[in-house]
């Protein structure tokens, strides 16, 4: 645990460097694909902070993504700022909302937290529709130059920050306390851990990064509308990614995001298979949740213990 060479971190950063190289030296189509992939990876890392680390299932996580999307869309479309300011605002508001919402909902355990997060997302969706400022259907569209590589490096930076943070949070004092909370919250408090403080901390991180990722998502799609910004299947996809990859780990989200993204948006989008991707991902979530709840990283951990330093 201490003084170990951080192979995992080096490995992940090497993968990220390779992605940057590929994006820089290949065509626009590849760059756009990588942007989308990394948006999903960023979302997966964001939900990993709360659901992966603490076991609190954030069904309504899409709320923070929507906050980020609207932050960027409003700034860029109404105030003509640069998208980077939109990302900064999205991250800030995502983090602040997570603190505010978490202060209330993180008091609820297990299924109550999950359901509270779900109804908040639905309430948020209805409230956005209520405001005419967000346009009919909560739709905001803006026109800015198409710069796939700039978008790529924005989301790339976000994912790198998430990887590094996940790694060090897991290894450090907070990580040990969080794992104790995940196992036995009351006993963690009896050992001196302040559960609320740690849960709020990781929830804030998760809101912040979901906000940033949501902002980039709006940037890459040149707009936002309420029914897709609050689409709960995004929450499911985020959960699916960390579940398939391995909850709470620093490798799992990138692994899971790659698998889910490629399945969902690339391999299964032939007209004949249309709709099939939802079935595949839904079925995969069921099977993995029931039979391998620790995901691919968990399988590797059990089957090849010698690979532990490389994957954790």
């Amino acid at each position, binding site marked *: 645990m201490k003084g170990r060479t951080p192979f995992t971190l080096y490995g992940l950063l090497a993968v990220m460097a390779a992605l940057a190289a590929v994006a820089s030296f290949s065509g626009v189509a590849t760059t756009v694909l990588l942007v989308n992939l990394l948006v999903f990876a960023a979302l997966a890392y964001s939900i990993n902070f709360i659901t992966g680390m603490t076991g609190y299932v954030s069904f309504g996580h899409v709320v923070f993504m929507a906050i980020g999307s609207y932050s960027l869309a409003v700034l860029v479309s109404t105030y003509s700022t640069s998208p980077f300011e939109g990302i900064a605002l999205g991250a800030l508001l995502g983090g602040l909302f997570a603190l505010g919402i978490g202060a209330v909902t993180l008091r609820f355990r297990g299924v109550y937290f999950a359901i509270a997060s779900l109804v908040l997302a639905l309430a948020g969706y209805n409230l956005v529709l209520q405001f005419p400022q967000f346009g009919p259907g909560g739709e905001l569209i803006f026109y800015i130059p198409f710069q796939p590589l700039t978008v790529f490096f924005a989301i790339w930076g976000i994912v790198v920050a998430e990887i590094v943070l996940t790694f060090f949070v897991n290894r450090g004092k907070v990580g040990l306390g969080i794992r104790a909370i995940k196992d036995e919250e009351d006993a963690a*408090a009896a050992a001196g851990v302040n559960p609320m403080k740690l849960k709020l901390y990781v929830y804030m991180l998760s809101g912040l990064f979901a906000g940033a990722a949501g902002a980039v998502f709006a940037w890459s799609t040149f707009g936002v509308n309420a029914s897709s910004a609050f689409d709960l299947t995004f929450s499911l996809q985020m959960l699916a990614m960390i579940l398939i990859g391995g909850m709470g780990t620093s490798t799992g989200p990138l692994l899971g995001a790659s698998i889910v993204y490629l399945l969902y948006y690339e391999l299964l989008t032939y007209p004949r298979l249309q709709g099939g991707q939802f079935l595949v991902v839904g079925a995969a979530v069921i099977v993995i949740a029931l039979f391998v709840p620790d995901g691919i990283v968990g399988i590797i951990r059990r089957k090849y213990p010698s690979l532990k330093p490389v994957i954790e």
Partner: protein
Amino acid sequence: MPAVEVSNLSKSFGGVQALRGVSLSLGESEVLGLIGPNGSGKSTLLNVIAGVQKPTSGTVKLGGRAISGMRPDAIVKLGVAKTYQIPKPFASMSVRENVAVAALYGRRLRSVGPALEEADRTLAIVGMGDRSDLAAGSLTAQEKKRLELAKAIATGAKVLLLDEVFAGLSSEELRDSIALFRKMHEELRFSALVVEHVMRAVLNVSEGVVVLEEGRVIAAGSPDQIVHDERVVQAYLGSKGVGT
């Protein structure tokens, strides 16, 4: 000044009065046994002192400072640690990590390294050094009880609230546990409030005994006085007398 001073503590759940004006004082390095029939309020008293439950009225003072109403984790950091009657280990973590959590947060250490070293020291003291790499969830029931004790000690607490740590042991295990407890007490000089059903343990480890019945203190004194107290024999020990 006593380590812990409990004054006129009451606690009710809905209509049920679990504690009715309990007062007691626990001296520095003193071990006080807390006995009484089931439902007499022993566990509730420990929970209220540890901050797990809030008192309805009354106060708990730690070294003269009122701690009643504080959060459990804040109370641990001030030096009061409680074990669970039914152990609650962090099942997916190793024994060493379990104890390290308590050391890290209870002692407000800065980083994981020193906490792990503290965990190793504590595990050696409680005789679980050879178990440190096992997953806590895979321990036997007895080992889990001892892990509870190790976690409480690792927090650096000067006051331990021990909820039936001697229950369910065989005669030999009990002898070993009592010996271990005495050794630890000599080494660490903690104060302890020991809730116990096993009379042999209570009489062997504690300097004083407090008897609760229906949320009230009905007797207090040395173990010798208590076993000869008419009310105690009637209320708690019954006609069977003091055995085991």
